[in-house]
């Protein structure tokens, strides 16, 4: 610890570890510019081109799969966020006997391997005679997103200052007014974070989808099917675009929350 190498070892190591995490992302991004022959696999570097970015829907089925994933993600997120927010409010605000049993019930889906969740739902749909398709994918996605929504929103409810709601009641606000004018706006950042997390989980899910998709192709299913013969560069374009979009979203939200903290610090 005394000599300077020890001081630099940890930062250097951390930088290397982060670079390690980023290698496959950089690879995917670089190969989205690969001028690979149409319909062929995207493994050999064949020169730089913007073609795949400009004509991303040229690869058969890739845009349809992307749109399917968006639709599934949005609907599953709406269901999971609505159900999960209500549950989080109940669990964080009320004490009742079944509370720990319900918390365990919510923890279990997160502790179940995806392959078991997927096979379980598929067995259920098989027994009940429900044909697999869009609806079964959405049901499955909302299920595994639900627990993550509850955990995220519950943390936000728990950090709320009860004095704010008390002030609302003291000023003769009705319970509905107190909820919509005070509680809900304060919870909103947590609810939005939960919805984004849930969309991200749904968008990237493969294993559970694979067991319940019927003939419907989501983006990960497309990549998996294509992997046997080579994934076209257009898939890299979509993945890279989604990555950049998500990254911008995170950076903007972090900068704005940093700015808000600075403003608050100035006030107090």
């Amino acid at each position, binding site marked *: 610890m005394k000599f300077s190498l020890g001081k630099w070892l940890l930062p250097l190591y951390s930088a290397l570890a982060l670079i390690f995490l980023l290698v*496959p992302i950089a690879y995917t991004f670089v190969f989205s510019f690969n001028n690979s022959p149409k319909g062929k696999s995207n493994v050999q570097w064949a020169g730089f081109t913007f073609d795949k970015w400009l004509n991303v829907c040229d690869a058969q089925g890739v845009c349809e799969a992307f749109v399917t994933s968006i639709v599934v993600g949005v609907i599953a997120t709406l269901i999971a966020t609505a*159900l999960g927010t209500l549950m989080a409010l109940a669990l964080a605000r009320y004490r009742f006997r079944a509370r720990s049993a319900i918390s365990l019930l919510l923890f279990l889906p997160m*502790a179940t391997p995806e392959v078991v969740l997927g096979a*379980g739902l598929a067995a259920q749909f098989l027994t009940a005679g429900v044909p697999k398709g869009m609806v079964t994918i959405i049901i499955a996605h909302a299920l595994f997103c639900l627990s993550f929504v509850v955990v995220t929103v519950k943390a936000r409810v728990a950090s709320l200052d009860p004095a704010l709601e008390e002030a609302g009641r003291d000023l003769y606000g009705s319970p509905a007014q107190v909820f919509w004018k005070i509680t809900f706006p304060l919870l909103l950042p947590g609810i939005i974070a939960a919805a984004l997390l849930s969309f991200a989980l749904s968008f990237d899910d493969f294993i559970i989808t694979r067991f319940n998709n019927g003939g419907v192709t989501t983006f990960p299913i497309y990549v998996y099917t294509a992997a046997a013969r080579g994934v076209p560069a257009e898939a890299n374009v979509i993945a890279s675009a989604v990555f950049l979009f998500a990254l911008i979203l995170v950076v903007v939200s972090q900068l704005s929350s940093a700015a808000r903290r600075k403003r608050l610090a100035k006030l107090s």
Partner: protein
Amino acid sequence: MAFAAFGSSAAPVEQAPRRRSWVAVILLLPGLAYLALFFLTPFISLILTSLQTPVEFGDVGQFQQAFKIENYAQVVGEYWPHFLRAFGYALAATFFALVISYPLAYFIGVKARRWPLLQALMLTLVIAPFFISFLLRTLAWKSLMADETPLVQGLKALSIIPSDGHLTGTAFSVIFGLTYNFIPFMTLPLYTTLERLDTRYLEAGSDLYAAPATTFWKVTVPLSMPGIVSGTLLTFIPASGDYINASASFLGSAQTQMVGNVIETNFLGLLNYPAAAALSVILMAVILLIVGIYVRRSGTEDLL
């Protein structure tokens, strides 16, 4: 945005109990109904399916309800190596992910405290892999480890791997892929506990003439135990059920198949639903057993 999901150990602010508990029931009902219908009953379906027997003279994939407990003995007899591989690979990946993540999480959570912007940047980079397709990331490693790459050629020149050997399709590449894919799940919970670590305890350790290594093992590690436990669980559980890394079109081969692969093949390929269901039930039971023992032994029951 995923931080909150992993920081479940945050101490909740205790609030006075409210009386109108019927409101709580109304709030909980839709979600509980959903979980009952699509989480609990599927487990019952899974158990029932695992006991089914083929319809006599029926087609492939036609089964009738029975109490054929032999299904379990049969899948264990046939697929025990897949179970061993699944838990072995998952254990190895969990170990490597912990060793790789701990110093990184320590740097972000403790050393980088003075620079919040650096902290935020590093955390964003840790979760950055979540923003890009899991399958494409794994395929990227497959290409980087392909036989004609300079890396593999170099290893062959140094005789680290035999001249007819491969890097992909081996236990090494599968464990490598699992480790890589689950590092963020390990780093984030470690970060959330280390971020709250009171560094005065470390100073006290050195004031009492403890060597840095002693302070680390006797103070830092015990204080970060909740993060270690949730990180290892968040890695081990999904890794033991994963079958992407081990599948032949990704980083594995026929010799690296894990239990997830045979559940998939039996369910979706061979339409042998009872076998797939029996395998799933066993996998789930073993995981619950391991998690239960592990959580009890590490003394962090309140984590659940």
